[in-house]
């Protein structure tokens, strides 16, 4: 990388992109760069960062809406929201620390460009579900907008949502508008001890099928519980954690009903507000996966299939697993190897259903294997078509998602 360009306004961003386009110079698109290690290594002589585009031009707490420039750090946004008793309900994970970057630096533009979400995915959705509108610059160097600042909007195609999860390969976002929600008054976590993966998933599915709005359901085997900083580490056994968030009076009631319905799984520990916030905060930063030489996969599947999928992979390599989303999301730590276990993992995913993404591996490995879920021929054709429509010269993050795009 020779140079990082840092436009300070959307106009500067557009001008930068136009000049790069004229000279057909490929460009790596980054925010704070904390997720730069995800995806295939980008071969580009220049990088452009949105981190110079900062600020919150619009925040209307009574309308549950905020507009922020793409380079605004998420931490700044969350502080601003908390000052009015609100939050990013989709609770985006902060993968920075697991990738060797600082915590709290990622930008709001990148959160939507990569469609992050967190444990509240099961109850509240992902980044894509909160995105109301975007402004940005396409690979053609043209400024465009999509969506708007109102909660409901079907005016034209949903281009904003289409850009979520495109990892800067279609356009550089300059501004995002999103829905926010009130912070819960109170949080309680029920931590069940010593369950096998199968039983844990059964418990989580049961809890999520009850009318008590469980907003987090995770399972950590004993080996990962030991890595927690949270006091649960002293339990030295698997932990299955169920979170409820609401007004205190509701929580008291719902907690009792949940415990009643889940008696078969033993008596849970109860974590109060403060203890809950620490646990879920730690999980949000993926703290059970320190930035070491192991590789890290993220597998989205169904809860029902998850234990068998993990079982199939375990036949080929030793892994550590953290189940989120009631079991529908598997974080998988694998030993470092030439293909990061891709062949075996992809085979297991093909059999049991879902999608797998290699989140952390050495650059040469990420260069050699497919990092994102391989595309079916029809989806690949559409993906190529969209890439050509937004970025016909293939200048934005070339090769980051797929080797030939």
């Amino acid at each position, binding site marked *: 990388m020779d140079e990082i360009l840092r436009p300070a306004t959307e106009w500067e961003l557009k001008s930068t992109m136009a000049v790069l386009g004229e000279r057909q110079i490929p460009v790596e698109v980054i925010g704070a760069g904390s997720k730069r290690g995800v995806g295939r290594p980008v071969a580009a002589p220049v990088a452009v960062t949105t981190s110079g585009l900062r600020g919150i031009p619009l925040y209307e707490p009574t*309308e549950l809406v905020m507009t922020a420039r793409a380079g605004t750090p998420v931490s700044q946004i969350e502080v601003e929201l908390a000052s009015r008793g609100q939050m990013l309900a989709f609770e985006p994970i902060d993968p920075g620390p697991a990738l060797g970057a600082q915590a709290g630096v990622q930008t709001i533009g990148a959160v939507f460009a990569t*469609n992050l979400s967190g444990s509240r995915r099961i109850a509240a959705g992902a980044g894509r579900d909160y995105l109301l509108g975007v402004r940005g610059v396409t690979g053609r160097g043209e400024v465009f907008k999509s969506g708007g600042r109102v909660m409901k909007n079907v*005016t*034209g195609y949903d281009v904003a949502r289409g850009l979520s999860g495109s990892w800067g390969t279609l356009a550089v976002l300059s501004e995002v508008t999103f829905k926010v929600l009130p912070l819960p008054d109170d949080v309680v976590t029920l931590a069940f001890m010593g369950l096998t993966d199968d039983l844990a998933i059964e418990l989580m599915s049961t809890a999520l099928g009850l009318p008590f709005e469980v907003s987090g359901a995770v399972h950590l085997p004993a080996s990962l519980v030991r890595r927690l900083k949270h006091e649960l580490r002293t339990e030295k056994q698997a932990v299955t954690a169920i979170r409820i968030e609401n007004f205190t009076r509701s929580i008291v009631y719902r907690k009792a009903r949940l415990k009643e319905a889940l008696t078969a799984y033993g008596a849970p520990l109860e974590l109060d507000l403060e203890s809950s916030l620490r646990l879920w905060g730690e999980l949000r930063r993926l703290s059970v996966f320190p930035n070491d030489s192991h590789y890290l996969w993220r597998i989205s599947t169904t809860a029902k299939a998850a234990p068998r999928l993990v079982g199939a992979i375990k036949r080929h390599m030793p892994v550590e697993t953290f189940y989120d989303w009631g079991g529908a999301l598997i974080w998988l730590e694998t030993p470092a190897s030439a293909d990061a276990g891709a062949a075996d993992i992809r085979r297991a995913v093909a059999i049991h259903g879902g999608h797998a993404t290699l989140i952390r591996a050495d650059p040469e490995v990420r260069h050699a294997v497919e990092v994102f879920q391989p595309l*079916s021929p029809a*989806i690949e054709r559409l993906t190529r078509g969209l890439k050509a429509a937004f970025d016909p010269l293939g200048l934005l993050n070339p090769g980051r998602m797929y080797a030939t795009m």
Partner: protein
Amino acid sequence: MPSIELQPPDRSVIARRGAIVRDLMALIGPEAVIADEDGRRTFETDALTAYKCLPLAVVLASSTEEVAKLLRYAKANGVKVVARGAGTSLSGGALPAEDSIVVGISKMSRVLEIDYEGRWARVEAGITNLAISAAVAARGFFYAPDPSSQLACTLAGNLAMNSGGAHCLKYGVTTNNVLGVKIVLMDGEIVDVGGPHFDSEGYDLLGLIVGSEGQFGIITEATVKILRAAEGARPMLIGFESSAKAGICVARIIASGIIPVAIEFMDRPAIAVCEAFAKAGYPLDVEALLIVEVEGSEEEISDRLDYIAQIAQELNPKVVEMSASAEQSARIWKGRKAAFGAIGRLSDYYCMDGVIPLAHLPYVLDQISEICAKHGLQVANIFHAGDGNLHPLIMYDANDAREAARAENAGAEILKLCVAVGGCLSGEHGIGIEKRDLMRVQFSDADLAVQMRIKSVFDPDWLLNPGKVFPLDAQESEASGREAPPRPASGAEAA
């Protein structure tokens, strides 16, 4: 009346109608093809009844494979296709074109698979919205989006328009409640997008497809989220002497940290009509009525409604009344859900669907009254206040061409007003033909070009649901830009 120009049909296709009908009968079977004029008449319009157009033929498909065959044939022969669910579109989204085949999918209405543990259901897209909830109700689950037409409208149409409903304040709209679709592209290819798992990596094709107004392909199956219903739900009525106070009340409820499942607003004319129809017990002496619903256990509901009542009391409301029974709740909702029908019994109406930032509510409601008065028309307002999605119902006489034209003009002015205050043209009904020519009010040519290029990726020949969403001249300029890369040879061009 109609002042919106329909896309000029391809006369050469119309001239081949006889051959096309014969081909369709051979392809799918004669019993699935409706070719006689009376039969086609049934499909000539949708819920935007001012516009009518007889299609070449109607085919009622009963499988994904049949849809694939039909589209492959249509593409090869350069024939346009309009997909149709129940035909309840308020924006002309299902209006046929004279040179098009209508492909109806309402026969494809089966529930294919339900997974309560995983909380999803896989269904054929012709199923009605309400039938999905009905299929899972016994286990206490439901499908969340609830457009007013939910008894009739199909999931396919909901997906095409990204429909909302009264309860989307809490549960989101269609796009937030669908996990995957099976879509047939115009070249007949059957593509599975997403699945029962969350968030497929790669470009969010599902996000693009939902809300694409039937212009990207025909969805034949979908995997939707089903949610465990709350233990109970109960609405309350809050009446005010002015809409401004109602607007402030909504803002204060939301700012307090409570997100009710629904906050609906009715103005005086709407209250009168709905009360006469449903006997819901709405107060008749208020200018603005809010229906606020919360969910939970009986105790939680009481807690929450009391709290909302306190917020309302600070604004000196004329009425605060909590529903006392399931029966009263049902009546309160019946009045709201039947609003369009009730007004329809009094008059023809033109239903708008603009969205505004809530802070502008009093100003916008004043302006709507002024605009309609200027055009000599009555208007009733019923809408989803929690998310600022307005539904002014402009009443007019469809048999009076000039009055009808005035209604359209008033509607266009109202939508421009919505955009001017920071809102948008459509919150849940879609653009269709109705708002097509207003798209430039909201979007620049560059914005539209981005959208139209996406259309060209999915449907390079622009054969699906033609003449809608984009102003006709914008469609033409996109078409002329597309000539550069060679288009795939189609049978029509060869013929």
